[in-house]
C-alpha cells in the first residue's frame, strides 16, 4: 500500500507514531495556554533560510514587486513575476534573485543570476509549491546589500501528489 504523497515530499522529521500523536495532542493543549512567543520559535525558520543565502545579513523589505497568485489551485506550476527596481548599471545592479519556499522539501527553489546587461531585473518563471506557505524572494544588489519580499500563498493541490 502506498501513500499518494511521495516520501520525498515529506518533511525531513521522522514520522510520528500514533502514540506520539496522542502525546503531542495532550502537550498541545498545555502549549495553547503558553504565550504565543513560545510557539513562534517553532521550526519553519524562513528567517534562517534567508540568512543562509545572504550570509547572515537581514534584507530590507523594499524595491521588489513580487507577483504570485495568493490562491494556487495547482502547486505543480505556479506563475511568478519578480521585478526589482534597479538601474542595472555596472555600479548598481541586481546580482541575483533567489526564491525560497520554506515548506517545500527543498526550500531553495530557484536562483536567477543577472548582469548589468540584463537592462531590467524583470523575471517570470513557473515554480512548484508543496503546500500553503510563505514564499520569499531575496535579491542581492551589487553594493553588497540585500532586499526581499514575501507572500503568503494558499495551495489547494500540492505539487507532492504523485502523477503531477
Amino acid at each position, binding site marked *: 500500500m*502506498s501513500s499518494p504523497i*511521495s*516520501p*520525498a*515530499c515529506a518533511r525531513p522529521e521522522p514520522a510520528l507514531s500514533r502514540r506520539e500523536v496522542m502525546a503531542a495532542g495532550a502537550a498541545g493543549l498545555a502549549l495553547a495556554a503558553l504565550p504565543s512567543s513560545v510557539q513562534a520559535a517553532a521550526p519553519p525558520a524562513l528567517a534562517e533560510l534567508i540568512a543562509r543565502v545572504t550570509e547572515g545579513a537581514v534584507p530590507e523589505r523594499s524595491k521588489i514587486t513580487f507577483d504570485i497568485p495568493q490562491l494556487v489551485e495547482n502547486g*505543480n*506550476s*505556479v506563475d511568478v513575476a519578480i521585478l526589482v527596481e534597479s538601474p542595472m548599471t555596472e555600479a548598481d545592479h541586481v546580482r541575483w534573485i533567489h*526564491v525560497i*519556499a520554506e515548506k*517545500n*522539501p*527543498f*526550500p*531553495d*527553489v*530557484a*536562483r*536567477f*543570476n*543577472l*548582469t548589468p*546587461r*540584463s*537592462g*531590467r531585473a*524583470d*523575471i*517570470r*518563471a*513557473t*515554480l*512548484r*509549491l508543496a503546500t500553503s506557505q510563505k514564499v520569499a524572494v531575496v535579491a542581492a544588489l551589487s553594493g553588497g546589500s540585500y532586499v526581499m519580499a514575501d507572500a503568503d500563498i494558499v495551495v489547494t493541490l500540492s*505539487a507532492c501528489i*504523485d*502523477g503531477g
Partner: protein
Amino acid sequence: MASFNARITMPAEAKAGEIVEIRVLVRHPMDRGGQVDAEGRIVPRKILNRLTVTYAGEPVFRYDMHTGVSANPFVSFTTRAVETGDLTFEWREDGGATFTRTARLVVT
C-alpha cells in the same frame, strides 16, 4: 533525451540599447525524484539544473533550477541589445547531458 524541445520567443531585431524580453519554454518532466511510477519503482531525480545564456559570447543570464521548478519550465528575462549576435542557450541536466540552442538578434 532524444527530443529536447525548446521554444525561445524573442524579437528577431532590436534597436541598439533597447531592452528585449526573452521567453524560454522547454519540454522536460523535471523529475524531482521520489515519485512512484506505474510499475511501482521510485523515479530518480532528473531535472534541468541550469540554463546559461550568452549573448555574442558574453554571459548575460543564468538560471539555477532546483526541484522546486515546475515541469516544462518557463522563464522570461531581459537583455539589452548591444550588437548583432547569437544568443546561446545551454541547459545542463542531472547526469551531465547538455542541450544547446541559439537564436540570432539583429541590432539596427
